[in-house]
């Protein structure tokens, strides 16, 4: 098929996916976006969320946390600090991370951090909780 683009999903520990795709839905820091071939070159940071990969004949979903996506002219790479195929993600994993995020909020609130940090932590927590409902776990 002509209108596909090379897509790579890598985490620090391994390469999770490398294939030709028709579209990728990326949970960007400023909102979800769908990148298709011939997208303008763009770099965006990620928020915790679902990454949907649409390849010809198959779609797959990954849960990604932190990192960034690079949309180039001939390839899309997502560098996620942590990435897990949706099927392997369990409620317990997510709960552990939500708890961690909650602790981070508390820690940020209790110490006299600049206000932005508290907001960031709160946003992270909200993203993670939203992710839980999204995945209907």
């Amino acid at each position, binding site marked *: 098929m002509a209108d596909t683009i090379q897509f*790579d999903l*890598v*985490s*620090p*520990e*391994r*390469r999770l996916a490398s294939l030709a795709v028709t579209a990728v839905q990326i949970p*960007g*820091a*400023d909102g979800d976006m769908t990148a298709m071939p011939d997208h*303008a*070159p*763009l*770099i*965006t*940071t990620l928020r915790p969320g679902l990454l949907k990969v649409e390849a010809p004949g198959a779609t797959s979903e990954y849960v990604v946390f*932190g*990192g*960034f996506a*690079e949309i*180039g*002219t001939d390839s899309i*790479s997502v*560098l996620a*600090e*942590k990435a897990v195929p949706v099927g392997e993600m369990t409620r317990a994993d997510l709960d552990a991370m939500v708890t961690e995020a909650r602790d981070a909020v508390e820690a940020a609130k209790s110490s006299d951090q600049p206000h932005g940090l508290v907001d960031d932590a709160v946003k992270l927590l909200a993203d993670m909780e939203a992710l839980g409902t999204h995945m209907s776990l």
Partner: protein
Amino acid sequence: MPSLKDLKNRIESVKSTRKITKAMQMVAAAKLRRAQDAAEQARPYTERFNAVMAGLAASVGGSDSAPKLLIGTGNDKTHLLVVMTSERGLCGGFNTNIVKKARAHAQELQAAGKTVKILTVGRKGRDQLKREYSDMFVGHVDLTEVKRVGYADAQGIAKDVLARFDAGEFDVATLFFATFVNVVTQTPQAQQIIPASFEATGDEGAATLYDYEPDEEAILADLLPRGVATQIFSGLLENGASEQGARMSAMDNATRNAGEMIDKLTIQYNRSRQAVITNELIEIISGAEAL
């Protein structure tokens, strides 16, 4: 002259030592394969990350509002040395070489009148450095319980380092580890992690002009701390492979030495035995002649 019994005991003990070193060598070889795989798997991430960071750093680096992690605190007084070594010994000169490099660096800095602080990762490095630099120690990260180094471990170390940086405890941080060249060669290396230095991997990144979302500085502020973790992680993986490589060749040498020793002792044993037999014969013959 040791008795026959003594020699026999010696040979037995060297034989069991050889068995152990042989087993350790084989275990190290298996672990080396795994460690190399892990390092291989991590490479695409690190490479892409550094390429993007290099591009970002080049475009933002000039301005005064650039993050401190990138341009530094403006000072150069206090240096933090993060020395990464192994948790276990019996791996030849691996730990000593890293420590030697770190020590040379520390002495150089001290001679230039700078303050040196040391953070160790891995028990062996701490043991070696504690003797002379105990007053400069600011912390130690213990990875004894960690079977397989994961990104989470690197994140833990990075968090510690970054917290110290935010608290203004140091201006420059340098990472010490050994890069894996091959089984017999591991090169100790010093890599500056704060302020970040990204080697541009050629001009391929400059060819594409990217849009940034959110803006470049926000992305940089988000990614720089991750960059520290990434660099520590790749250092840990390199170190893991180097350690197993060093252990493998050290144990190979030990096995060969044990083999040589066994041969030598066996010859000595046989000679002594022959001497005893000859002696006995002489006694019998001279006894018979006397009759």
